[in-house]
């Protein structure tokens, strides 16, 4: 079964998928190159210095910021001299009605994206799988994976142009007599706009993974089934789909680790005050509260809670994926 490295836009890193029960037994240490960490081998530690520096500076050091959530932060005085308020900031955040709304928006949008991206990717891969001309398949892959390599500033600019009140899509609707849809201004429509524009951008790249898995299915199995009288539908249902199921489950399970992410850059580009009630997600709220309104404590509280819950989510997703599909991220 295809084991692959996959990359997502919101997660920083996705190491390889490997069978859950892995733990390579220690390779035999050869006398000529092992032994204690002798004079030659201290170099190895030296080589890790840049990485250690990067981790300390950019991952460990910023942890002091958690303190901001527990004080009445005064940037001039700094953290040490700001007044300690205990859990007051947390209570303030959870007291606000918008908080539960934020979580709801984030989870709903994230769920929609995670599942639909994979379903769309798999469906497209299945369609491509039936194409007989390799050149057409290559062309289709190149065309559909292009948007994955554009930023949301690019795709968002186009979306704003196309989906706006005077945009091409509404123009098309008007020419066939359909009523205009306010994709970007109607709070009931906006979440769908977010999810479907994201699927449009990513389904091609998602399909790459599935197509690779599909080509791994033993063709003899399919031929035998055809000889036995199984039509395309039966072959699909009984051989092909079960074949890609582990990959699908892996992708969805790992995607669930990003349940609180929901695509910050996209939302920031596409949203506006009219759709905050359904489109504002945790990350955009943190950005607005923190760097636009300078309410550092609120922003930090939300950010820290999201970080902790998100971390648990990823670890859980990794474990669940291992149990369900046999593949894990790490």
């Amino acid at each position: 079964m295809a084991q692959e490295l996959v990359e997502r836009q919101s997660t920083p890193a996705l190491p390889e998928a490997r069978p859950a029960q892995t733990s390579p037994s220690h390779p035999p240490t050869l006398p000529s190159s092992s032994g204690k960490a002798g004079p030659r081998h201290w170099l190895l530690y030296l080589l890790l210095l840049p990485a250690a520096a990067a981790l300390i500076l950019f991952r460990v050091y910023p942890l002091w910021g958690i303190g901001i959530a527990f004080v009445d932060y005064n940037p001039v005085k700094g953290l040490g001299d700001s007044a300690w308020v205990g859990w007051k900031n947390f209570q303030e955040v959870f007291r606000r009605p918008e908080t539960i709304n934020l979580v709801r928006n984030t989870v709903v949008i994230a769920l929609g994206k995670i599942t639909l991206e994979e379903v769309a990717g798999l469906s497209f891969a299945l369609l491509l799988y039936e194409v007989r001309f390799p050149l057409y398949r290559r062309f289709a892959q190149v065309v559909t994976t292009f948007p994955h390599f554009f930023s949301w500033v690019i795709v968002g600019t186009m979306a704003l142009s196309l989906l706006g009140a005077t945009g091409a899509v509404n123009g098309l609707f008007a020419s066939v007599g359909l009523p205009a849809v306010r994709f970007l201004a109607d709070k009931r429509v906006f979440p769908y706009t977010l999810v479907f524009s994201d699927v449009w951008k990513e389904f091609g790249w998602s399909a790459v993974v599935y197509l690779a898995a599909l080509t791994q299915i033993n063709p003899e199995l399919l031929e035998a089934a055809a000889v036995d009288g199984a039509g395309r539908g039966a072959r699909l249902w009984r051989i092909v789909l079960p074949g890609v199921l582990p990959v699908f489950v892996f992708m969805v399970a790992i995607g669930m680790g990003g349940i609180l992410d929901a695509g910050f850059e996209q939302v920031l580009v596409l949203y506006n005050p009219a759709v905050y009630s359904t489109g504002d997600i945790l990350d955009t709220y943190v950005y607005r509260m923190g760097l636009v309104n300078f309410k550092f404590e609120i922003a930090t509280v939300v950010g820290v809670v999201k970080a902790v819950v998100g971390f648990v989510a990823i670890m859980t997703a990794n474990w669940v994926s291992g149990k369900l599909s046999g593949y894990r991220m790490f």
Partner: protein
Amino acid sequence: MIRERSVKYLVVDVFIYVVLGLILASCVLPFIHELAISLSARPEVMANRVGLWPTGFNLDNYRAVATKDPFLRSLLMAVLRVVVAVPCTLLMTVLTAYPFAMERVHMPGRRTFMTVMILANLFDIGLIPRYLSYLNLGLIDNFAVLILPILLLTFNVILVVNFFRGISYELVESAMLDGANHLNILFKVMVPLSKPVLATISLFTIVRHWNAWFDGIVYLRDVKLWPLQSYLYSMLSTQQLATEYAAFRFSGIFPNVSPHGAEAAMVFFAILPIVIVYPFLQRYFVSGMQLGAVKG
């Protein structure tokens, strides 16, 4: 490919090709429409009369954008960012991956460090602590903030580690017998053999840095340091574009400039490198993802 000779098969086949055609069209048409807008005359654009073909073909939008200093500067910043980031990222990745890959060498703490690295990169403390930390580190308004924080990416390291592990250990052993130390082995044995994986990481890094825009607008208060896409983001509001390009219209230099058209032109400037390069390198992106697959 199993082909049957039946009407049902043919009908389904046609259906599949039609659906595929529609999907591909939906991917391509938006770009064609925007391209047409960028190449159309002002009155047509303002009246929303442009379809898939330019009306009143002219290049004013592109000319106007190309003479705007802030735009050109942001282009320079983006190129600078990519040119600096790629070698630095490769170096960091390779230096970090090598100790992890040398499993046969006894190295206490290796596993721990690896675990710490993976976990630490998964936990993102939040925007505010990060911003304030960068402030303390002197990275705010410093071009380095666009590069340093993302030098070490677990994805890249794992990719290279797996590749290094695939290199025949005999080469390493013979180098050791010749008296090579680890630096020699890394740069004279491993790296020269790692061109495919290094090319893949370079590609991913180029795309990542070319497309990055949020770090610019948050950590760089000086607009002059903004890379291309950060500048583009700041231009997203049509009011801003109208003001920016009004002078061109009134002076009659580029009479056909429209805010929408200028925006579209900027978008195409931004995606041009990717569009030109990607079709040829697409298989490297795809195979790069599979390069890190665990063998066996």
